[in-house]
């Protein structure tokens, strides 16, 4: 149970980081933390204590097997996370070129 709770804590740290930090790079790190927390939680959902590797063969009965589906899905989710992080980091670099700062309180041409 405590593992799930720690997962929630990690998620909240990430959200706090996104909401409160003023530096673009730190916000990107916050996004990465949120994604890790969700991925970790997904893996934990399929995990079984002292479970067996999920390889099926005809002479074995299916017993105490770790759920393999979340692992496959998390791989996809990690790749998506990588794409998002790369894109946002690229945008942050271009923002730095244009504004000369990473501070979001100084980047405010849009309002209203």
């Amino acid at each position, binding site marked *: 149970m405590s593992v799930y709770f720690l997962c929630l804590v990690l998620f909240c740290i990430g*959200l706090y980081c996104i909401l409160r930090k003023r530096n673009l790079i730190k916000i990107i790190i916050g*996004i990465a933390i*949120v994604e890790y927390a969700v991925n970790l*939680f997904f893996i934990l959902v399929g995990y079984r204590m002292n479970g067996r590797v999920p390889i099926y063969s005809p002479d074995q009965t299916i017993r105490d097997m770790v759920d393999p589906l979340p692992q496959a899905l998390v791989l996809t989710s990690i790749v998506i996370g990588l794409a*998002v992080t790369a894109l946002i980091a690229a945008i*942050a670099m271009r923002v730095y070129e244009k504004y000369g700062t990473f501070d979001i309180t100084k980047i405010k041409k*849009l309002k209203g």
Partner: protein
Amino acid sequence: MTQNLLPLFIIIPLAAAFLNSLIGKRIKGFPDVVSAVATFALAFISVYSVFLLKESGTLVYKVGGWAPPIGISMVMDGLTVFMLVTLNLIAFLISMYSVNYMEKYTDKWIFYSLFLLVIGGMNGVVISGDMFNMYVFLEIAAIASYALVAFGTEQEELEAAFKYAVMGTVASSFILLGIVFLYSFTSTLNMADMAMQLTGKGASGIVRLAGVFFLMGFGLKSALVPFHAWLPDAHPSAPAPISAMLSGILIKSLGVYAIIRIFFSVLGASAGILNMLMILGGLSMIMGVCLALGQWDFKRLLAYHSISQIGYVVLGIGLGTPLGILGGLFHLFNHSLFKSLLFLNSGAVEYATGTRDLRKMGGLKGKMPVTANTSLVASMSIAGIPPFNGFWSKLIIIVACIQSYHFIYAALAVIGSILTLSSFMKVQRYGFFGESKGKANVKEVPFFMKLSMILLALVCLSAGLLLLPLFYDYFLKPASDAVLAGRGYLVDVLGAI
């Protein structure tokens, strides 16, 4: 083997995007042709599938030949076909418009590749019958749209894209979290199977929690009011065709469609969820239009109106009555028509005069007759003037509110409509009528831009006819029936295998 048509909705745009990025750079004019052909093919197939659906009922395609609870499935029911027609029709007209409009940007092939990726992602979201698959397509569409918002790479665009990307990613995380909770509860990802498991297990705290996560995630994607902050920045910053696509179809397929599909077909619409949707819808309806009143930037004003009009759609859906759902869906269709048209108009004005500020325009009616007249059609449609399509859908929503004794929401809908009218009278007065203030040598825009605006205006004028019994049975009735059936979705899907 009619269900073999289904994967085409994903294959065509993805293949066209791939071709574009492979050889689009070398051959001039190639990206234009490929994306126009691809989007035209998509529009044609989606209109054809309207008749197909009428003939053969719900279609299910099994990817790789695996039966649904194990394999991924693609499902085409009434609601899906309705969304596909809306998406691909608008996408084709926008693609035609971009031929001339995108001349002023470099790297047209990158634009078209990203544009086709967004279309592929949206079609995938709409046609997928699997939760995680839906999430993957949602991310394809979302990531490509972040890049498209930043396409101009000026200060405003980059700032808006960063804001949009951060909020969009947080929303996606919440959606994934909701999927994880549902998976842990039902041990399946197929929507129909999930609906069946949930029916067997009854209500639970986990399902409610997942519902809250979905509402947050998809609410952010569809820019309902507490989650709307990114929209007025992101939509105006993109190039005009992309603004038209984001406001016209992206927030609907990623947001509203997903809300309908998950809350009605999978989780089963409870009174609490419907109430929540109605409150969010009513709030968006009024807040959006109030914020729009003070705007002088043409595109920013339109972006705020998108929030308001999405409020109408969600209010109609949230009523949960047959008439309310019909009104909501019809307004969704109409809004995608006239909002795309308005954004294309704003793009045409910007193309010709170089400004988006309403105070610096004026007197464009004489110089740009096509743009001025089509924008008049769109303005009257969005404000709900009788012969135009916006009137019928708003009328249905208001009547549905009164019928189910929600008089406050009916009053709010009327007030919102009046405020919309006043806001668009301002646009017409400052932008197109009155004296000329800006550049003297303003010319009408090139041919393809005119053509797509005229076609959209014609569809706006005639969309009210869809309520006639002849067309109603083909297009709107299957869609509203699919929503009304709720968890009947699972019977449909399992029956069609």
